[in-house]
C-alpha cells in the first residue's frame, strides 16, 4: 500500500471539523492577546459558538461521503457523525451559559473559549478515531483542555483544588489507557481497531492470550475513569463541585459523551470476539455505578455535588445499554446521551444562574421558594429534573425506556429490573429539589435574583425544546442512532 504524505481533499473534508475547531481556537488565543483589557469579549463568544455550529455542519457534510481517512486512522461513519454533532451541540450550549458567568466573575477571555474549542476538537477526534493512538491523542486533547477549564478561575481555591484533583487522577487514567495500548501493541503488533478485531477473530493468530486480557483490563480502567464509572467515580463529585458551574456542565456532558463513543467503539468492534472475558465485569460496573451514584446523591446538600452523583448514576444507566452488547443497546446509549445532553446542561444552566457571583448560592437551601422568586426558572428546572427522573413526555423517559428495553432484549432481566428500581430511588433526590423550589418559602435573606442573561435564556430554550422533542417524537434521533450503530464494525 503506497502512502501519500499529501492528504487528499476527501481526507481533509473528513477531518475538517477538528481542523476548523483547532484553527479557530488558535485564532481566539491570538485575538485575546490583541484585545484591550476591559473591552467586551462578546465577539469571541459568538465566534466560538459559530465555529462549533460550523463544525457540526461540516460533520454532516463529511458524513455524506463516509469512509476512512489517513490510512484508516479515522473512520467517518454515522456513528462518529452522531457523536461529533452531539459534542458540538454540548459545546454550543456551554458557550451560551458561560459568557455571562465569566463576565460576572471578571474572567471572560479568549482563552476560555479556545479551551472549550480544543476540548471539543479532541472529543470529535475521540468519536471518529479508528485507531488506539489516535483515540489517545483525542482523549488527551480533550482532557488537558478540561483540566485547565476546571481551574479556570485561578484565584478561587475551590477551582484550584478541582483542577488539581482532576489533573492528577485524570493523568493516572490516561496512563492506564496508554499502558493498555502498549501491551496490546506488544501482543498483536498493531494499534488499529479493525486490524485487532481481525486478529482476535482469527484463532490461529495467537493474540487471545492473557496479555490481551490484561491489556483490555487496563483500557477498561482508563475508560471507566473517563465516564466516571464505579469504582473510578470518586473524582467526579469533587471536580464538579469545585469547577465553575458552566465548566461542570461541560464536563458532565462533552467529555463523557466522547468517552462513551470510545467505549462503544472499542468494545463493540474490537473486543467483541472476547466478550465473555469482560462482560461480567461490565455488568458489575454498571450496577455498582447506578447504585453508588443514586444512593450517594440521596443526601447531598450541594446542588452541584448532587448533580455530579446524578451524572454518575446516569453513566450507570448508559453502561447498562453497553452491557446489552447489541446494536439496539448502542443505539439506546446514543439516544440517552443526546437526551442527557439537553437535560443535564439545562439543569446546570439554571444552577449557573442561581449560583450568582462567586457561586455563593449552590446549596439546596438556596433554591427554597424559587417558584415564587422566579416561576419560569423553577418550572424550567422542574422539567429537566422530571426528565432526569424519567417521567413520560420528556426525553429522559424514552432514554431509560430504550436502555432497559435493550437490556431485556439481551436477557439481562435482573440488570434491567435493578436499574428501573434504581431510577425510582433517583426520583427521591430529584424530587427534593422540586420540593425545595415549590413547597418551601424563600428564606428571608434571599437576595433578589437578576434576570437571566440572553445566553442562558437561549440555552434553556434550546434545552427545553430538546427535552420535549425527544420526549414526544424520539424517532427523530433514535432512527438515526439505530441506523448508524451497526456501522461501527
Amino acid at each position, binding site marked *: 500500500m503506497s502512502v501519500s504524505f499529501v492528504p487528499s481533499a476527501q481526507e481533509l473534508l473528513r477531518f475538517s471539523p477538528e481542523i476548523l475547531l483547532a484553527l479557530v481556537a488558535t485564532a481566539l488565543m491570538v485575538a485575546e492577546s490583541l484585545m484591550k483589557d476591559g473591552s467586551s469579549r462578546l465577539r469571541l463568544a459568538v465566534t466560538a459558538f459559530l465555529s462549533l455550529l460550523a463544525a457540526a455542519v461540516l460533520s454532516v457534510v463529511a458524513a455524506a461521503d463516509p469512509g476512512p481517512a489517513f490510512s484508516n486512522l479515522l473512520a467517518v461513519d454515522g456513528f462518529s457523525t452522531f457523536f461529533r454533532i452531539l459534542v458540538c451541540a454540548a459545546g454550543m450550549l456551554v458557550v451560551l451559559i458561560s459568557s455571562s458567568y465569566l463576565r460576572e466573575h471578571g474572567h471572560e477571555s479568549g482563552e476560555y473559549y479556545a479551551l472549550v474549542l480544543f476540548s471539543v476538537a479532541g472529543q470529535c477526534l475521540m468519536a471518529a478515531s479508528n485507531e488506539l493512538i489516535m483515540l489517545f491523542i483525542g482523549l488527551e486533547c480533550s482532557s488537558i483542555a478540561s483540566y485547565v477549564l476546571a481551574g479556570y478561575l485561578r484565584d478561587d481555591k475551590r477551582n484550584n483544588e478541582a483542577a488539581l484533583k482532576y489533573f492528577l487522577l485524570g493523568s493516572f487514567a490516561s496512563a492506564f489507557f496508554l499502558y493498555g495500548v502498549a501491551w496490546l501493541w506488544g501482543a498483536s503488533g498493531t494499534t488499529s481497531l479493525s486490524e485487532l478485531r481481525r486478529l482476535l477473530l482469527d484463532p490461529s493468530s495467537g493474540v487471545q492470550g492473557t496479555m490481551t486480557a490484561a491489556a483490555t483490563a487496563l483500557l477498561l480502567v482508563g475508560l471507566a475513569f473517563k465516564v466516571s464509572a464505579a469504582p473510578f467515580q470518586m473524582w467526579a463529585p469533587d471536580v464538579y463541585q469545585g469547577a465553575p458551574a458552566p465548566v461542570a456542565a461541560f464536563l458532565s456532558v462533552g467529555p463523557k459523551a466522547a468517552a462513551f463513543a470510545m467505549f462503544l467503539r472499542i468494545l463493540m468492534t474490537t473486543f467483541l470476539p472476547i466478550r465473555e472475558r469482560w462482560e461480567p465485569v461490565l455488568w458489575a460496573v454498571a450496577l455498582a455505578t447506578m447504585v453508588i451514584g443514586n444512593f450517594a446523591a440521596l443526601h447531598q446538600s450541594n446542588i452541584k455535588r448532587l448533580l455530579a452523583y446524578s451524572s454518575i448514576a446516569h453513566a450507570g444507566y448508559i453502561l447498562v445499554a453497553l452491557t446489552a452488547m447489541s446494536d439496539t443497546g448502542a443505539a439506546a446509549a446514543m439516544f440517552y446521551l443526546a437526551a442527557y445532553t439537553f437535560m443535564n446542561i439545562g439543569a446546570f444552566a439554571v444552577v449557573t444562574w442561581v449560583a450568582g457571583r462567586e457561586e455563593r448560592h449552590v446549596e439546596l437551601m438556596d433554591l427554597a421558594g424559587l*417558584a415564587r422568586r422566579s*416561576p419560569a426558572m423553577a418550572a424550567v428546572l422542574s422539567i429537566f429534573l422530571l426528565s432526569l427522573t424519567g417521567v413520560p413526555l420528556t426525553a429522559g423517559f424514552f432514554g431509560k*425506556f430504550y436502555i432497559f428495553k435493550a437490556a431485556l432484549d439481551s436477557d439481562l432481566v435482573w440488570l434491567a429490573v435493578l436499574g428501573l428500581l434504581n431510577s*425510582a430511588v433517583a426520583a*427521591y433526590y430529584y*424530587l427534593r429539589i422540586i*420540593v425545595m423550589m*415549590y*413547597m418551601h418559602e424563600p428564606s428571608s435573606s434571599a437576595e433578589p435574583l437578576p434576570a437571566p442573561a440572553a445566553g442562558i435564556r437561549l440555552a434553556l430554550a434550546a434545552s427545553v425544546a430538546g427535552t420535549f422533542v425527544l420526549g414526544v417524537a424520539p424517532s427523530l434521533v433514535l432512527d438515526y442512532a439505530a441506523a448508524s450503530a451497526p456501522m461501527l464494525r
Partner: protein
Amino acid sequence: MSLLDILLLIPAAGALIALVLPADNPGLIRKFTLFVSILAFLLSLGLIGPVGANAARYTFETDTVWIEYPAIRYHVGVDGLSLWLIILSTFLTPICVLVSWKHIEDRVKEFHVFLLFLLFGVIGVFVALDLFLFFVFWEVSLVPMYFLIGIWGHDRRIYAAVKFFLYTMAGSALMLAAMIWIYNRAGTFDLRLLLDMLRTGQLSFSAAEGFWLFLAFFIAFAIKVPLFPLHTWLPDAHGEAPTAGSVMLASVLLKLGTYGLVRVALPLFPEAARGNAPWIIALAIAGIIYGALVAMVQPNMKRLVAYSSVSHLGFVVLGIFTFTQVGLDGAVYQMLNHGISTGALFILVGLLYERRHSLEIADYGGVGTVAPWLSTAFVITSLASVGLPLLNNFVGEFLVLQGAAQAKFLYAALAGTGVILSAVYMLWLVQRAFYGPTPEPVRHHVTDMNPREWALVLPLIVMMVWMGVGPQSFLPAISAQNRQVLELVSGKPALQKSAQEVAHVR
C-alpha cells in the same frame, strides 16, 4: 378526530391556555378552568349513547402510529368499563374547581393548570388501548397530583407528596419492565392485538413467566388501589392534600389501580390471576377489616375517610377476584360509588375545615344546630358510604358480597363485617361532630352552606340517590364488558363469545 380525541385534547389545551393567562387575575383563571371542565363533562356525556349501544366493543377508536420503532401506537377507545370512569372524572373536575373557589388563594394559576393536566392524565389512562400509552398517561397523572398535594396541602404535605410519588414510581418501574418483556415476546404493545394473539395461541406465557409478569403489574396496580399492606401512602396523601386533591385522589386516581387490574392484568394473565386469587382475596378482606378498624380510631376526619377508602377499595378488589359476573359488576359499580360518596365526604369535610380550620373531630360538636343543611348533606353522604339501601354503595357492596358468596361463603361472611364496621365509624363520626353540645368556636365560625357550596354538593347527592335507585342506568354497559373479561379469565372457548356477539348484532 373522534369525540374521544377531542375529549382528551380539551383539558390538555385548557391547561396550556391557562398557563399563559395573567397570574394576577385569579377570577379569570377560575372561570376559564370551570368552563373548560364543564365543556369536557358535557362532551363526555356524548359518549354514553354510542358506547351504551355496544358496550362490549371499543367505540370512538383511533389507532395511529406514534413511534415507528418500537411499535408504539396512539390507540384509544372507550367501552362499557371505561365509559363511566371517564364521566366520573369529568363530572368531578368542575366540582373540584368550585370547591377550591375560595379555598385556594395562593398560586391560583398553577393550581388550575395542574388540575386540568390531571384530568388529561386520567382520561388518558382510561382510554389508552396501547400498553405503552397506558403507562405514559399513568405516569403523567402522577406529576400534577404530586404538586397538588405538595404545594397546597396541609402541614405535613411534603412528606405526603414525596411518599405518594415514590410509592407509585416504584410500582411503575416494575410495570414498565413487565411491559417491555411482553413487547419483546409479542412485538406489540397493543392491548387488543395482544389479546388476539393470546387467544389464537400465537403468544403464550409459561406458568413462571405469567406469574412474574402478573405480579409486576399487580404490584403496580395494588399500590395505586391501594391494597393492604401497600396502603400506607394513602392516609398521608389524603390527610395532607387540599380538598380538591383529596377528591381527585380518592375518586379518580385510586380507580386507576382497579381499572388496570380489570383492563390489563386479568385479561393478559388469566391463569396467573386465577392461581393467585386466594391470597389476593385474603389481602382484600384484610384491608376491608383493617381499614375499617383503623378508621374507627382516627381523631382526624380526613384520615378517617382515607382509611374508609382502604376498606371500600378492598371490596372492589374482592369483587374483581371472585371471577363472578355479579362480583365483577359490583366491583366496577363500587368504583363509581366510592368516587361519588367519598368525593362528597372529602368535600364536606373540606367545607367544615374552611369554617373551623381544623380537621380534628374533637374540635367539632353540635354542627347540626348551627348548620342544619350542611349536616343533612353530611348525614346523607355518610349513610351512602355506610351502604344504606336506596343509596349507591348498597348496590355495589351487595353485588360484591353476592359474588363473594358464590365464590366461597367464607369470603362474604368476613367481608360483611366490613359493612357493619363502616356503620360504626361513620355514624360515630356523625354523632361526635354533628350532635351533642356546640362548642363556642363552632357556634362562632360554622355557617350553613352558601349557593356555591350547594351547587357542588347537590349533584353528588343526586347521583348517590340515582345510582342507588336506578342502577340499571349504569350496569348494562358495565356487565357487557365484564362478561368478556370473565370469558377470558375463565378460559371458556371463543365460541361462546361469538354467540354473544351475534346476539348483540341482533
